[in-house]
C-alpha cells in the first residue's frame, strides 16, 4: 500500500471496526488509541522516503500517489503535521478510555484524523477544505454526546465552518485564474481577502470567536479539547501549507502588522471575557482564544524562530488542553455545578487548574516556555503589544482563580451556584476511579516536567517548524 493512502484509509477502517465493537467499549477505545499511536510513531520515527517492510508488506513513507485522480503528497511538513495529529489523538483516546467511554468520541475521532490527514495530503488544496468540512460535520455527534447538554456549541461550530468553506474554494479558482492573467492584480487581492476571512473563521479570531467559548461550555470536554487541538492544529498546518504554496501571501507589507494586531486583539478579548467567567468549560474556550492570539503573534514575526515558537505553542496547547479537559470531564462526572467539587474530585480539580495554568503560559508548566518566547519576540518590536498579551493571560488567571475558589468552597446546600447549566439527572459518583487518578497524575507530572525541562521537546518543535520553509532565519 502506498504511504499516503495508508494514513487516510487505515484510520477510517479502524474507526468503522471500533464502532461495530462498541459493545466492548474499553477494547474498542484502546484499539483506536493503539492504532493512532502506531501511526503517529510511524510518521515520526520511520526513515522518510525509504522503503519499509512490515508483516510482509513494503511501503514508502513519503512521496506522491494518486486517489480518484487527485494527488496525495506526503512531504516532510505534512509528515510532521500528521505525526502531531495522530500522537495527540492517541493521548485523547487514552483519556477517553476512562473518562468518556460511552460516547462516539474514539471511533469518530479516529475517522476525523483520517479525514484531516486527507486534508493535509491532498492537492490541489481546494479539496482540503472539503475534507475539513466533512470532518467537522462528523465531529458534531460526539461533541453533543450528552443529550442533556444544550446544542449551541455544535450549531455555532458547524455554522462558522460552513461559512468558511466558500472562501477557500473560490480563492483557489481565483489564483488559478491569476496564473493565466497575471496582469489582473485584483484577483490576487480578492483571493488574499477570502483566504484571510476563511482562516479567521476557522481559527475563531475576533469577531468570529463566538463558537470557541460555546464549544468549551456546552460540548463534551474531551471532544471539545480534541477539536481545539486536532482540528485547530490541522487548520493551523493548513494555513502554513497555504503560505508555502502561495508565498506572495507573506509578501504584503501589512502582513506582519495585521497578524500581530489580530492576534493581540483576539488574545485581549479572550482575556477580558475570561476574567468575568465562572464556568469551567467557558474559561477553557477563552483560554484557547488567548492561545490562538499568541500563535498568530508568533506567525506574525515572519521568521523561522516565530514559526518554531508557533509549533511549540501548539504542542503545549495539546498537552495543556488534554489535562484541562480530563479534569473537566472528571468534574462533570460528579455534577455540573462547581461549588465544592474539589472535595469530591480533588485530582480532577487539580488537573483542570494545572491544565488551565499551562494553557495561559504560567511558569513551571508546559505552556510557559513557548509563551515566554512569544513575549520576548514581541517585546523586541512592540512592547505595548507584548504587555497586552501578558495582561490577557493575567485576566485568564483571575478567571481561573475565581473558578478555583468556587471549587474549593464547601457547599452550604446540596445544589451549588455554578455558572454553567446543570442538566437534569446528572448523578454524582462518590469517588474518582483509581485508574482515572493515575492517568491524571501522569498528565500533571508531565506538564510540570515539560515546564521544568522545555529543552526535552523544544527540539521537536523547532524541527517541525523547520519543515515549513516559509520564512528565512
Amino acid at each position, binding site marked *: 500500500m502506498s504511504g499516503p493512502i495508508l494514513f487516510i484509509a487505515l484510520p477510517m477502517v479502524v474507526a468503522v471496526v471500533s464502532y461495530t465493537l462498541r459493545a466492548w467499549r474499553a477494547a474498542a477505545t484502546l484499539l483506536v488509541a493503539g492504532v493512532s499511536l502506531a501511526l503517529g510513531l510511524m510518521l515520526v520515527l520511520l526513515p522518510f522516503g525509504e522503503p519499509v517492510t512490515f508483516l510482509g508488506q513494503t511501503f514508502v513513507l513519503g512521496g506522491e500517489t494518486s486517489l480518484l485522480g487527485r494527488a496525495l503528497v506526503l512531504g516532510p511538513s505534512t509528515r510532521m503535521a500528521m505525526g502531531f495529529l495522530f500522537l495527540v489523538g492517541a493521548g485523547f483516546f487514552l483519556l477517553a478510555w476512562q473518562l468518556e467511554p460511552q460516547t462516539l468520541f474514539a471511533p469518530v475521532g479516529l475517522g476525523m484524523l483520517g479525514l484531516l490527514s486527507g486534508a493535509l495530503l491532498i492537492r490541489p488544496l481546494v479539496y482540503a477544505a472539503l475534507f475539513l468540512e466533512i470532518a467537522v460535520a462528523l465531529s*458534531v455527534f460526539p461533541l453533543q454526546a450528552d443529550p442533556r447538554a*444544550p446544542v449551541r456549541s455544535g450549531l455555532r461550530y458547524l455554522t462558522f465552518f460552513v461559512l468558511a468553506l466558500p472562501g477557500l474554494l473560490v480563492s483557489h*479558482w481565483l489564483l488559478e485564474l491569476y496564473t493565466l492573467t497575471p496582469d489582473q492584480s485584483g484577483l490576487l487581492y480578492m483571493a488574499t481577502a477570502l483566504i484571510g476571512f476563511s482562516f479567521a473563521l476557522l481559527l475563531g479570531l475576533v469577531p468570529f470567536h463566538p463558537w470557541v467559548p460555546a464549544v468549551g461550555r456546552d460540548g463534551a470536554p474531551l471532544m471539545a479539547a480534541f477539536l481545539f487541538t486536532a482540528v485547530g492544529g490541522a487548520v493551523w498546518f493548513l494555513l502554513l501549507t497555504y503560505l508555502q504554496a502561495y508565498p506572495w501571501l507573506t509578501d504584503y507589507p501589512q502582513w506582519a502588522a495585521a497578524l500581530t494586531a489580530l492576534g493581540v486583539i483576539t488574545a485581549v478579548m479572550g482575556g477580558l471575557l475570561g476574567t468575568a467567567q465562572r464556568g469551567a468549560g467557558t474559561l477553557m474556550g477563552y483560554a484557547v482564544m488567548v492561545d490562538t492570539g499568541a500563535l498568530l503573534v508568533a506567525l506574525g514575526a515572519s521568521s523561522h524562530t516565530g514559526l518554531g515558537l508557533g509549533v511549540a505553542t501548539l504542542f503545549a496547547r495539546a498537552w495543556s488542553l488534554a489535562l484541562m479537559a480530563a479534569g473537566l470531564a472528571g468534574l462533570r462526572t460528579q455534577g455540573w455545578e462547581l461549588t465544592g467539587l474539589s472535595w469530591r474530585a480533588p485530582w480532577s480539580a487539580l488537573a483542570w487548574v494545572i491544565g488551565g495554568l499551562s494553557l495561559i503560559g504560567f511558569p513551571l508548566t508546559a505552556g510557559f516556555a513557548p509563551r515566554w518566547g512569544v513575549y520576548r519576540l514581541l517585546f523586541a518590536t512592540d512592547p505595548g503589544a507584548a504587555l497586552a498579551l501578558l495582561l490577557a493571560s493575567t485576566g485568564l488567571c483571575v478567571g481561573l482563580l475565581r473558578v478555583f475558589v468556587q471549587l474549593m468552597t464547601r457547599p452550604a446546600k446540596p445544589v451549588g451556584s455554578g455558572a454553567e447549566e446543570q442538566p437534569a439527572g446528572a448523578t454524582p459518583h462518590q469517588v474518582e476511579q483509581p485508574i482515572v487518578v493515575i492517568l491524571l497524575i501522569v498528565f500533571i507530572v508531565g506538564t510540570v516536567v515539560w515546564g521544568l525541562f522545555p529543552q526535552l521537546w523544544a527540539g521537536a518543535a523547532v524541527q517541525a517548524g523547520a519543515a515549513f520553509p516559509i520564512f528565512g532565519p
Partner: protein
Amino acid sequence: MSTILQFIDRVSFLAAMPAIVGLFIVLSVLMISRAWQTQVLGMVVLYLLVGLLNTRVIRPEVALIKALIGWLICLTFYVTGRYLDEQGGRGKKSLVEPRQGWRPFLAADVPLRLLVVLAVLVIAYAGSLTFPLRQVPGDINLACYLLVVGGLFLAGMSEEPLRVGLGLLIFLAGFELFFGALEPSLVVVGLLGATGFLITLAVTFMAVTHAAAGEERP
C-alpha cells in the same frame, strides 16, 4: 435517464426568471413558516428550482444528481420531523413549536420576518448589481445572492437546530450554484454532496438532542 433528460429539456423554459421568482417565494415561505411540514415541502421545491437553474451552468445529469441529493436531504428532515412529532405526541416536548390560534403555520413574529424577507431581496439585488458574479448568467447571479443571503438570515435568526440547518443548506445551495460553473469536477460535486448530507445528519441529530434536552426556544 433519457426520459428524465427529455423532461428537463421540456421544463428548461422555467430555468430563468420564473425559477428565481419561485426561489424568492419559497424563501419567503421558509422564513415566515414555523410548521416543519411546510419547511420540508419548501425545501423540496427549492431543490427542484435550484436543479433547474443548475442545468444552465452544468451538465443536466450532474444537475439531476445534485437535485437528488437535495431531495434525500429533505427526506431526512421529513423523517426527523415525523419522529419528533411522535415524541411530542407521547408527552415529551416536541421540536416543533406548538400551534396557536388562527395562525397554525406562521411564526409569531411575522411582520418582522416579512421585513427580513424584504431586506434579503434588497441586499441580494444590490449585491448582484454591485459585485456581479461574471462567471454565471445575470439571472443566476441574482439567484446565487438570494440563496446565500436568505440562507444566512435563516440560519442567523434562530437557535433551533432544524432552522439553522435549513439556513446553512440553502447557503450552500446558493454557493454550489455559483461554484458549479467554476469547478464542474464530479469529485467536487460528490464531496459537496457528502458535506451537505453530513451537515443534515448532524443537524437532525442536534434537533433530536435539543428536543430531549427540552430547552427553551426563542
